[in-house]
């Protein structure tokens, strides 16, 4: 309260001064509104130093000291992702990750949750295709206690069988609920159709009814024993910490973790989509159609990374991008339209997507394809510069919070990006030319070889879509995409 009172007093004195100074009235000093103000030189982002250490069993640790707000973000990345699971055990990596929190050390599932919540900390464990991600986010004042819980969760999970049964029910019910969500149906369909149901990126990470029903506690223990060890682990810590303290803490707890053999994660590049097929998935009476146009894109380490980033910003990666401007601002067909590249170890997807009003589904599709063609034909200097500046000048905004920075450092480590990566990012973006943009547009956004997924009211939209003659049309039901609804 004291501080506030002081502020208030300062404020009223100032008001008085202002009242005196502001005569004659403000109109006297007209400001020039005929053009935007000249802006000074953009500031450069200076990050705290990236500190590196290696624990005695070889675990690499990266720390960035970020003082100011008293909290800590710690991320463990482990090569224990879904790409490692056999075809008949889809969902095992993510189930193993979830089971970590269902009992560890001397604590039951409920006791663990109570202890974490009581600290005001959060601990998460999830698996994607490539990794297990375990994170700890905690007030600095609770770091020691929270770290002890985090360590038990990773190092001493107890895997109680009854908790697995609980999670099994929860996951089967999630499968049921997916049938309600048109955007989820469209995303699952597009992944399966572009990558194939056997590819790591096509089959998903949650599992289907059959695999979820089949997974056992032995599977979980087996997966844990096979992949959860030092040779697969990397730590990133960002926050109000001292590097030496954190490394000592990690050494004490994780330094003696079994070393093991590094997992080899081989994700083959999927075959490119050939030709163009429209997959119309019926969602009777839906007021909007979810459109997802997708093909195989590029991997994270592609030499085309920066040209692709700029090209996609122009096409559908920003508010004033062509797709959003055309479908939303010019035509009012949608609340938003965009495009993205999912870049991973192997080439992920390129996707252009939107939810459009049912009655204009065919017209919206025409605009989509017009933009997908146009991006490799012509790009103006103005668009190019705007996109480059948006990415380059906006880059420091990705380094505001501890968890954002930890994510950036994690990506750097995971893909073995060079130390100067952050510092050279802006230079690399600004080096992209018009020719680069057109080259990567031709290479990655080929609208003749692409899968077109539409989830919407078939009886209203089928005729219009057929009239566009985009290619062969396959009509499907939601069950054809997600499988029969599990009965519990």
């Amino acid at each position, binding site marked *: 309260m004291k501080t506030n009172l002081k502020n208030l007093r300062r*404020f009223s004195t100032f008001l008085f001064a202002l009242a005196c100074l502001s005569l004659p009235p403000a109109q006297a000093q007209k400001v020039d509104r005929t053009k935007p103000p000249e802006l000074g030189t953009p500031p450069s982002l200076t990050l705290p130093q990236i500190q590196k250490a290696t624990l005695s069993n070889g675990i690499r640790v990266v720390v960035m000291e970020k003082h100011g707000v008293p909290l800590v973000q710690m991320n463990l990345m482990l090569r224990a992702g879904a790409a490692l699971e056999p075809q008949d055990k889809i969902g095992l990596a993510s189930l193993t990750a979830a089971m970590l929190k269902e009992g560890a050390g001397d604590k039951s599932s409920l006791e663990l949750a109570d202890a974490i919540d009581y600290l005001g900390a959060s601990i998460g464990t999830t698996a994607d295709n490539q990794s297990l991600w375990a994170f700890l986010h*905690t007030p600095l004042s609770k770091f020691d206690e929270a770290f002890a819980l985090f360590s038990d969760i990773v190092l001493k999970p107890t895997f109680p069988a009854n908790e697995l049964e609980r999670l099994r029910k929860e996951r089967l019910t999630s499968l049921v609920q997916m049938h309600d969500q048109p955007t989820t149906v469209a995303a699952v369909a597009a992944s399966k159709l572009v990558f194939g149901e056997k590819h790591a990126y096509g089959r998903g990470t949650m599992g289907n009814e059959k695999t979820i029903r089949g997974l056992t506690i032995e599977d979980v223990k087996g997966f844990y024993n096979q992949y959860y060890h030092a040779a697969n682990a990397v730590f990133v810590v960002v926050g109000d910490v001292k590097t030496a303290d954190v490394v000592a803490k990690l050494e004490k707890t994780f330094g003696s973790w079994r070393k093991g053999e590094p997992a080899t994660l081989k994700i083959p590049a999927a075959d490119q989509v050939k030709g163009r097929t429209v997959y119309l998935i019926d969602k009777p009476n839906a007021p909007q159609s979810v459109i997802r146009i997708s093909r195989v894109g590029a991997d994270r380490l592609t030499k085309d990374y920066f040209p692709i980033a700029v090209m996609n910003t122009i096409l559908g990666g920003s508010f004033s991008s062509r797709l959003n401007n055309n479908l939303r601002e010019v035509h009012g*067909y949608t609340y938003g339209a965009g495009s993205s590249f999912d870049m991973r170890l192997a080439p992920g997807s390129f996707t252009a997507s939107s939810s459009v009003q049912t009655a204009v589904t065919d017209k919206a599709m025409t605009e989509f394809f017009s933009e997908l063609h146009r991006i490799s034909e012509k790009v103006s200097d103005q668009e190019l510069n705007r996109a480059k500046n948006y990415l380059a000048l906006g880059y420091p905004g990705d380094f505001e919070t501890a968890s954002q920075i930890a994510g950036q450092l994690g990506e750097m480590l995971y893909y073995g990006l060079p130390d100067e990566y952050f510092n050279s990012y802006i230079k690399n973006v600004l080096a992209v030319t018009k020719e680069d943009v057109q080259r990567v547009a031709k290479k990655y956004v080929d609208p003749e070889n692409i899968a077109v997924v539409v989830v919407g009211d078939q009886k209203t939209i089928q005729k219009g879509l057929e009239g566009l003659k985009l290619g062969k049309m396959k009509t499907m039901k939601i069950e054809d995409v997600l499988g029969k609804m599990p009965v*519990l």
Partner: protein
Amino acid sequence: MKRLFLIPLLCLSLASAQDLRINVPYTQFTLPNGLNVILHADRTTPRVSVNTWFLVGSGNEKPGRTGFAHLFEHLMFMGSKNVPTGKFDEWLEAAGADNNGSTNSDRTNYFEDLPSNAMELALFLDSDRMGYLVEAMSPKAVDAQRDVVKNERRQSYENRPYGMASLVIDENLYPASHPYHWPTIGSMADLSAASFEDVVQFFRTYYAPNNASLSIAGDIDIEKTRALIEKWFADVPRGKPVPLIDAPPAYLSEEKRLAFEDRVQLPRLYMAWLTPALFKPGDAELDIVSNILTAGKNSRLYKRLVYEMQIAQDVSAYQESQKQISAFQIMATARGGHTLSEIEKVIQEEIYKLKNEPPSQREVQRAVNQYEASFINRLERIGSFGGKADQLNSYYAATGNPDYFNEDLARYRNIDPRDVTAFVRTYLREDGRVVLSIVPNGKKELAAPGTFISVEGK
């Protein structure tokens, strides 16, 4: 890198958790045209957030013109006298900035997050649309955004499972003449009816500097920023005093039991009550109640419904704190083979328990500790929705004090478990609430007892 941390951003003392004090130092002044300004320096990242609140929301609308405040928010990005259509976003993107806006019943907020060298661009754009929006407005622009907003309604409500729930609940929770009775997104018919003249009138009535607050947080020099604000905003004309909302009292003296069918696989139950307004006695206590009931595996409802009995897929509760009056809501989704009557019985039992016996000290402390941690987390970001610039404006609008962090946190710390019980008794009554079932098409038998209604747009 050292440069970044030379300036103490926050004065935080952490001798023990109980001593945690949060100060977000600020400078405040008012321009002669009535614009309130709040400035806060934080040089962690070379970015600035320019955040503006207008004290107008869907609560200021009239029946027949619902959704207008939000439609107007969209028009604020369509250009103004000196900013041609499309340039607002293009110029900001070319400077490396992001921007957005949002509307609720009580206020409309806007932000631009920019590299610090580009702050003046935001001041130019914001002052131009605050002072000279209608000069550039055309019926065509209104029509374009009308279609966009209708699609927002389709995407966020009509084509979303259970998406119509909040609309039905608000319609039944608040009396017809109350400003929270209608949804911020508006009805399709009202959106169609909104005219260009409405836009001009709305702008003249509410979008004046004397009804706004500008909060800037980030890598700024206070004196230079003040000078730039005076440069750009001094010529924005003051508006007439803004008419206050004359909200009739809202109370429910009956239990309204309703149900409708939807394109969903699982039935879901909602319970909603009218509760004390933001920062009024009981508001923080009901936040704690929501935590005790549904936050984490050990919360009472989660533990019984989801963890032990396993008859629900999820359960959540929250106190939606608002300016005039708040709403407390509990929501649970039944698993396959279970009815909403089974779910309701358990929820009711747990409410009774809270009415009859104070929660344990540990339960309350666990909740308070989580709130305390969230206050620390809220200090990391300057921009976007919920960043420091937005929080300073939010506290200022509600209390007149931008740096209300400690007072807010103290509300939670000072809670006695017996207060929790007292407020649950007073507000979570069986004879004053809305109970809504949403069930899969053709499965009326899964609903809790209630009258089936038809819902337009589902």
